[in-house]
Each structure stands twice: as structure tokens, then as C-alpha cells.
């Protein structure tokens, strides 16, 4: 198991570096960072001042090598916009994104699993069809639209929640719902399918013959087996929440990593983009690894390493 974890860790680093190199190349090819920082109305002199100030006049391989050299020493560079170490910037904003991601997962679990259970216990009924309809709708609705609709309904028409910002826990309710809704379909369907399969298994028949019924049958025997694949999907989904919060954070003006990523890309703040991509790649790979380990831990039939 340890060897497996170490190998996957090394793979995570390799993925992160590869992705960061691709992002570096794309950013430098797609835009002139000095012009993006200076702004549209900046004179050529100002653009050149900025180009020299941030070392953007040096060749790309030199700049990437400098960045890489800094990273191995734990120095991710300084943000062109924020004028502070990128690592500090990311650490400051990570809390908001982590809170949002966890809250979104809570929303997903609270909606998707009960819906999936209801659908599985009443297959091909109106309950099942409704649950599937909810799942399809949640998948089809763009989250920027959903976000604005939620604001109109619950912040303007019925002023229950704040429109934007991240000062209190109430500021996270609507964004968590919007972000969590995107994962509901996959988790709901997996729960439904898993539970239908489990409910037809021999050991459930045995449990029934022993006198287990209703909630006790569901909780003690069926659900814990049906949720095994769901847990690993949830772990992967959590990783996606970190990178997928860009739109939600922009609409609700949450000062998290997603919004930082958007602003950094638009402003060609290359050091910040580099670090964010690095971090997101590591998080995603680690979450996948966690999913594998959890699966192995919960299901003795699975061996890894």
C-alpha cells in the first residue's frame, strides 16, 4: 500500500509539472502578458516598462527554467498584479474555495443520495421518474444561469440570503447549492443503480428472512454496500469542485481560488496561473488516489499495490 501511495504521489507531481508547462506555453503564445497587465490604453512606453519589470522580455525557456528552479525551492514567484508571493496569495484564498467545495459536497450528498434511495426503492414508479427528471434537469441547467436565478429568487425577490460576498456562512448557501447541483445527477444515478443491484442480492434475502425490514434493512445491510462506488465518485467530484468553482465564485463574488484563476488568466498573471494549475492538478490526483484507497479500505475484495 505504501509503495502504491508513493508511486501515485510521484505521478501526481509529474502530472502537475506537465500541465504547468502546457499552461505556461499556452499563456505566452495566446497573449502578450505585458500588454494584458498594462491595459488597453497604455502607451508603448508603459507596456515596455512592465515588460522589463517582470522579466517578460526574456526568452520563454529562460523564464520557465527560472520558475521551475524557484518551485523546487518552494518559491512560486510573485504575482504581477498582487505584488505578493503567489504561495501566500493562494493560501489566503484557499479557505473560501475549500469551504465552498465542502458545502457543495454536502448539498450533493443531501439531495442526491436520498433521491437515489427513493428512486431505487420505487423503481419505474412516478417517484423514480421524478428523481431521474430532477437529475437530468440539474445536469442540463448551466450553473451561471442557476446562480443568477437563485440570486433573483432568494436575494432580491425574497431577501433571505445575501447577493454576493463571503463574509458569513449565509453567503455560502446559494453558491453551495449552485455548485453542488452539478454533481447531483451522477451521484443520484449511481446510488439508484447500486441500491437496485444490492437489493436483489442473496444476502439481502437472507437478512429479510432473519426479520430485517424497512429502515434497518436499508441502513444496516443494503446502503453501506450500495454506496461503495458512490464514495469514490464523491472523492473525485470533490477534487473537481476545486477547479470548477470559477463561474460560481465570479457570480457570487466569492474571493476564492476559482475567481483568482479567472482574474489571473485574463490578466496574464503567469506566476499565479502556474501555481493554481499546479495546485489543482495535485488536488485532483490526490483525490483520485484517496478514492482508490477508500475503496480498498471499504471493500476487502479490492487489493491495490
Amino acid at each position: 500500500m505504501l509503495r502504491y501511495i508513493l508511486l501515485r504521489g510521484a505521478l501526481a507531481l509529474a502530472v502537475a509539472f506537465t500541465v504547468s508547462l502546457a499552461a505556461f506555453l499556452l499563456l505566452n503564445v495566446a497573449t502578450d502578458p505585458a500588454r494584458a497587465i498594462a491595459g488597453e490604453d497604455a502607451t508603448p512606453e508603459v507596456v515596455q516598462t512592465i515588460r522589463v519589470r517582470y522579466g517578460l522580455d526574456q526568452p520563454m525557456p529562460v523564464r520557465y527554467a527560472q520558475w521551475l528552479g524557484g518551485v523546487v525551492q518552494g518559491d512560486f514567484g510573485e504575482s504581477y498584479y498582487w505584488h505578493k508571493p503567489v504561495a501566500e496569495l493562494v493560501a489566503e484564498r484557499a479557505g473560501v474555495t475549500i469551504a465552498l467545495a465542502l458545502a457543495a459536497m454536502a448539498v450533493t450528498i443531501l439531495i442526491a443520495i436520498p433521491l437515489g434511495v427513493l428512486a431505487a426503492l420505487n423503481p419505474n414508479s412516478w417517484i423514480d421518474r421524478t428523481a431521474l427528471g430532477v437529475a437530468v434537469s440539474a445536469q442540463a441547467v448551466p450553473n451561471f444561469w442557476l446562480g443568477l436565478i437563485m440570486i433573483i429568487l432568494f436575494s432580491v425577490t425574497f431577501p433571505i440570503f445575501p447577493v454576493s460576498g463571503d463574509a458569513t456562512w449565509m453567503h455560502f448557501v446559494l453558491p453551495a447549492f449552485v455548485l453542488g447541483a452539478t454533481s447531483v445527477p451522477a451521484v443520484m444515478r449511481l446510488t439508484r443503480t447500486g441500491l437496485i443491484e444490492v437489493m436483489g442480492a442473496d444476502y439481502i434475502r437472507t437478512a429479510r428472512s432473519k426479520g430485517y425490514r424497512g429502515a434497518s434493512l436499508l441502513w444496516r445491510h443494503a446502503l453501506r454496500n450500495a454506496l461503495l462506488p458512490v464514495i469514490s465518485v464523491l472523492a473525485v467530484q470533490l477534487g473537481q469542485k476545486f477547479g470548477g468553482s470559477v463561474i460560481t465564485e465570479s457570480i457570487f463574488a466569492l474571493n476564492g481560488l476559482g475567481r483568482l484563476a479567472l482574474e489571473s488568466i485574463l490578466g496574464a498573471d503567469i506566476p499565479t496561473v502556474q501555481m493554481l494549475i499546479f495546485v489543482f492538478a495535485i488536488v485532483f490526483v490526490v483525490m483520485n488516489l484517496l478514492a482508490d484507497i477508500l475503496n480498498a479500505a471499504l471493500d476487502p475484495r479490492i487489493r491495490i499495490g
Partner: protein
Amino acid sequence: MIKLKRAVGSTLFAITLSLSLSTAPAFAKKADDTLRVAMAEEILNLDYNYTTKREYIILAQMTDASLFDVDPKTQEIVPSVASGYKFIDDKTLDVTLRTNVKFHDGSVLNAEDVAYTYNWIIDPKSESNATGIIGRWLDRVEVTGANTLRFHMKAVYPLALRDMAQRIMLRKKDTYNPGGVVNKNAMAQKVNGTGPYKVTSFKPGQEVVLERFDGFFGPKPAIKKIIVRNIPDIGTQQAELMAGGVDWMFNVPLDLAQSLGATPIAKHLSGPDLRVSFVVLDAAGYTDPKGPLTKVEVRRAINYALNKSEMAKFLIGGSAEGIHTACHPAQFGCDQKSVDYPYNPAKAKEMLKAAGYPNGFPLDLWAYREKPVAEAVAADLTAAGIKVNLRYVKLESLDQARANKQISAYIGTWGSGGTADTAAIARIHFSDETDRNLSGDAQLNKDVLAAEQTNDENKRRELYTKAIGRIADQAYWAPLFTYSANYLVSPELNFPLDSDGLPRLQNASWK
């Protein structure tokens, strides 16, 4: 069962009610004398000596005062921190300072502070965003008394006072290099300015809180507190305005401004802006030495083909209007008597035929913003017979292509930095120092530069009349329209609109 349902319903209602009461947004406005302002651009740096964008200019107007200021009503340069000035000769300026100017930390500004600020800015190691602008004409600043200074200029420069008014924010001595150690970010997070508002709280990318500075030497602002909130999405800004979380929005799309402005929630204000839009034509033939754009008849035909007034009316709205000069009509030296080419597509076709293009010709038209405008221009040119290939790209791509002389025509805009002087648009677009100049006209280059080498206003006006007239006659550009700035504000707010288009929040007041 019925009792259970009622219990559940009552509980839910109670929860909703208590939540709504406990979290009702704090409404702004007169009650707490706080103006809440929404900006999409993140405010990351409070020091305008190291930034360039529009939002930072708006903020700097509140936190800083400069030696001179622009009178919003007359657009004339008036002393501000300076109490008076005198040009000893064309390249030497003596300035006298007020004695009652305080920094926000309570210390009094003196001549050493002003000299330090300017000498620092022009020092290349400062890497200030203003270095190139001021360093072009300023040699050094010398302290001549406790509150007097002498500015030594490298060359005659008629816009010196305007640059000083708009670009240089005064700092205490040694701010950027305390103890000899350079710190360009000294004022980035905590600015110690001399303006009518001081910053009491700054969360970069989220919020700036400003409070009226009682030690300000000039007229006290009417509103006590201003909170600048960074809200990137315009839909969210709109929702905040509707919910009372915001009182002022700018850069509002026209359709949104009109629809929300028609409700009691908000008032739509439409003000002038010094920004102009135009089509630049490769008259010099960089992309095709014998191409159609090298012929003045073709360029004039292009001018006749464009319905500028309708573009202004329907695509921009407000106070936007069609123009026929390569400058904004409100700018000094922008002579409106130059030739106009009123919309006439039939005449455009006729002229193209006479020039040897009865079936038109292919044209790559580049653009980087406002796609509807680009499409309208392309459609008008197509109607005149020109086969337009619209290349809609990012600004950086257009810049690179232009620098490589690969652009035959592009749609550009220029805001002149809010400067109501033709110098702010002419040099950057028609001198040989810049790749934006596709005219290839050596005489035009001379005239444009000469207009910045004299302080004689009559001479300058004469030179610009000649330059603007030549640009129009030779149709190096197809000028399109001026812009209009759209704002949505609370009905309780008085917000004056100034002719240079610069929002001056420090002049706002409650009704």
C-alpha cells in the same frame, strides 16, 4: 397527518422569516451616509503611481491630490496642491505650494515631498507606470524654498501641467526607498495620500472602505463614507443594486441601463466620454504597396460607406454621436471644420468604381472589442461592395500583427486618458514613433510633433487644424463615433457628469 403537515409548514415559515430578518442586507444610502459602489475590475493596488486602469484613476481622485487639477466644468488646469505657478521660460516652471496640505497621517506636505515624488517617478529604477509619461519632458525638480520648487524640463512640452494634474500622486519623502532600500509597493496596500478621502480598510480584490478626511485642504465631500466593492459579474452588480447593496454602477451595458433605469429602483445616467472609435486604413501600403487602400479615393469611399450616426445611436446610445475628425470634438485643437463624408453608400460605390474597383476588393478588417460595432462596420462596407473578412481577435494579437505591419485595416478606440487635448490622441496615432501610424505621411508626423513643442496655444491650434484637416482630406482614418458612459445609480444620489467622462465620486451627494 394534518396536524403534522401544519407543524412542518409553521416551522418552515418561522425558519424562513427568522433567516430573512437576521440576514437582511444592510441598505446603504442616506441613512448611514454611505455610498456603496460596484466595480468589476479588482482593486489590487492603491497607488496610482504604479497602476494605469480606469478604476484606479477613479480611486486616486478620492485618495490623492496632485499639484494641479482639472476643473470638471471648464476642463481647464487649475492649481490644487500648488497655490500658484509661473513659467520662467519655456523649459523652467516655478511652483508655489499651499501650506495647509496634510497627508492622511496628519503630517504636513512640504517642497521636499513634492520634489522627492517627481524625482523618484522619473528615475528609471522607480519602474513607475508614470515614468515614461513624465520622464519624456521632465529633467529634474529642485527645492528652492520651504514651499517652492523649480521644475527643469528637457524640452518644451505644452501638456506638462496636465500630466502633473492627472498622473503624479504626491508622496512623503523617502516613501519608496526608506533607508535606501527600494520598495515600489510601499503604498500598494496602505496609501498615505492627500486627497479628500482616506482609506480605512482595504481587502484586495474585495473591498476598499474610504472615509472623508477632515484634514483635506479643499472643499469637503458631501458623503462621509464610500465603500468600493469588487463584483466581477454585471448580473450580480445588478442584483445588488436591486437588493440595495449597491448605489452606483458604471460601464453598464446600454440595454441593462435602459431597462433597469426605467424602474423606480435605479436611475440611468448617460454621460459624455472622451473615448472615440475609428477605422484605421493602411494608406502607406505596408501590407500591399499597390493595394486599394493606398488610393485616397478608395479611403474616401470607405468613409462614405459607414453609417456612423446610426451606429452611435443604436449600438452605443446615450450621448454618443457620429464624428468626422481623428479626435474628440471636445479636445483642444480638434477642428470641426475639416472635411466630412456623410453616409452615402451609393456615392461610395461610385467612387470605388471610378478608382478601378467596380466589383469591390477583399479586405481583412481587424477588431478586438465591441463585436456588434465591428459587424456593423463590416456590413456597411460589404453593402458598398467591399468583401470584408472580419478578424475578431484579442488585443494582444492585434498589437502583435500591427507591430509586424500585417494589418490593412483595424477598428480602434482611444480614451486619451481623459485629456481634453488633441495631443493625447494625435501623437500616439500619427507620429513615426508608433506602430499605430499607418498613414506613412512624413509631414503629418512633423506637424503633430511640432504641436507639442510650443506653449503658444494659437500656434498649437494652427498646427492641429492643419494635421486634422490633412487626416480628413486624405482619409487616413474613417472616424466613427464618440462613446457614452452609462451609469446606474440610486434615485437618492446626485452624481454629476463631467465632460471629460471621468467619474468623480468625491463630488457625489445625497438628494
